[in-house]
């Protein structure tokens, strides 16, 4: 029993990692109808910047805040400079642009900081807490807590602020939004900026657990995409819950189903994606769209 609980707890910890990045992916999708393949790399890059500040003597929380600001500006810049020119283009074009970003940012991180693994300080206590044979730390749940707080903030923002309304409108119907005076271009830039901030938060929370190097977010991205689809590409809450479900589910399957074991864990996650996309593309929390033909 203790082993089962430990696997659940470990799965929640890993799932929290997936969920935090999935949140950023969902936000970009929701505000710009784009899957940003470079989301993880943007988060990784921001984390390196944070580490550079901390190494230069900045206290942790100052570095954290400054990084968020820089991530926001970076996201806005990327949208304006690189995405704006292909705004009306078919989905394929934007996909390729984000792939190009992915490759370029990864290379840039290698160029500036090299490939060595580094440690990154944690915002939460890493002290182990053991209850009834199950061990975890505040850090494990800190990620989940921060992600849920972000979900709540996003909910309030989209529901109750004018800018949030503008963002939603710009994503759903850009033409009509322009007619009522919404600055669609800047709404998109804002969406990218916020998503970049979420990505940076994800990176800075994940790095203490998995250690920082330019390839840190690669595996996270794949599982985060799976989590986002599972939870529903339009739902921030779904992203976090999807991540947790995925983390726990994969752990339990790997423990108790020999055939899948560790080797087939990644393919299994994607079988899950395919299954979800077929049965209920809107995911666990998304709204089901009906097309009347």
């Amino acid at each position, binding site marked *: 029993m203790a082993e089962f609980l430990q696997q659940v707890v470990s799965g929640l910890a890993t799932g929290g990692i997936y969920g935090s990045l999935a949140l950023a992916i969902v936000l970009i999708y929701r505000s710009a109808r784009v899957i940003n393949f470079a989301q993880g790399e943007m988060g990784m890059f921001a984390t390196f910047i944070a580490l550079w500040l901390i190494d230069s003597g900045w206290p942790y929380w100052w570095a954290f805040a400054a990084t968020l600001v820089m991530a926001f500006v970076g996201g806005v810049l990327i949208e304006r400079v690189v995405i704006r020119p292909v705004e009306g283009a078919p989905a394929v074009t934007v*996909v*390729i642009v984000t792939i190009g970003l992915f490759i370029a*940012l990864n*290379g840039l991180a290698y160029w500036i900081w090299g490939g060595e693994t580094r440690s990154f300080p944690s915002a939460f206590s890493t002290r182990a807490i053991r209850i009834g044979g199950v061990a975890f730390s505040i850090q494990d749940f800190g990620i989940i807590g921060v992600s849920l707080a972000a979900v709540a903030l996003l909910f309030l923002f989209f529901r109750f602020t004018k800018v949030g309304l503008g963002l939603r409108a710009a994503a759903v119907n850009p033409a009509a939004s322009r007619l009522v005076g919404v600055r669609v271009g800047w709404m998109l830039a804002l969406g990218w900026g916020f998503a970049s901030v979420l990505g940076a938060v994800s990176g800075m929370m994940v790095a203490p657990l998995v250690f920082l190097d330019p390839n840190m977010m690669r595996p996270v991205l794949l599982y985060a995409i799976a989590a986002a689809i599972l939870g529903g590409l339009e739902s921030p809450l779904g992203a976090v819950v999807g991540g947790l479900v995925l983390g726990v589910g994969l752990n339990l399957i790997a423990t108790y189903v020999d055939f899948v074991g560790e080797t087939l864990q990644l393919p299994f996650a*994607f079988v899950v*994606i*395919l299954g979800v996309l077929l049965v209920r593309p809107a995911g666990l929390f998304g709204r089901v769209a009906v097309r009347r033909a």
Partner: protein
Amino acid sequence: MSQRRVLLRAARFAAFAVGVAVVTVLPHWLSDFRASEVAYVGVYMIGILGLNILTGYTGQISLGHGAFMAIGGYTTAILVGHHAVRDLWTIPLAGLVAGGAGLLFGLPALRLSGLYLALATFALPVALPQVLKKFSHFTGGGQGIQIFGDPDYTGKGYENVHVLGQTLTFNDWLYYLTWTIAVVLFVAAWALLAGRAGRTFRAIRDSEIAATASGIDLPLYKTLAFGISAAFAGVAGSLFVLVSFSASPGSFPIVLSLYLLVGAVVAGLGSLWGIVVGALFVQYLPAVSGHISNHAGAADVTRGVILILVVLILPAGVAGLIRRAGSPLTNRAIRRS
């Protein structure tokens, strides 16, 4: 038929004839080694051809065509390496197997479109290496399958090959094998797309609702597009293995699928004109960017920036460029007469 149409037809035929002529005599000017390098261009051309049918003409994004190449490639590797089947016979077989896989995937993919489809196809190249490693009894696991020196492998990797009364060096043989098949498949694709199937695909791409309303059997044609496109990729994969005399999970990485899509976009979706340029891009971008600087990471930065720039500057790809450049010429010619 309008004069413009006649002129365009003639121009296209002439361009095609020139292309075939160039392909036929090129090895005379290429060093022996370069011939094997250009063989890879032929391989990528076939892959991009297939991808274009699916993404350019039918409007379904695929980020997973590297996986179909892997399926075709491993079919060849397993048959030649483990079951003593003559390599040339495995090429159409690889196409069939990969095509079958494409049909299988196309069925459930019917419900998806746009980004959701892209993500679903992305799952394939991500998951495949692990599956290949798991069933290592058949696939040789992480070390893969080597066919160098295998008696069923034409040329065995180093011998001269005698065909049609000519003696070709091994590299030249690879070149002619891949480019002959590439030209044949190009013509096949052209014929397919110029006919009813092509019109149906384009109708689906432009508006699925309108297509259904006109009586098009959407599921049939969408699945067919997947199957045909995957078959092309399978043949490309088979040739890839023959040119590389080996197959291993690491030879079909995720970036291959991404670069195939990039190549298709660079070539110009929805048109066959720029296919060769797309293939050249896929083959030479990594190498060229590597030469820019020795510094760690600089090559990747260059690649990423070039990808972005190409898509920004040439959203309609090389084909779009040709169309734009060509229209004043044809206008001129018509006005003259």
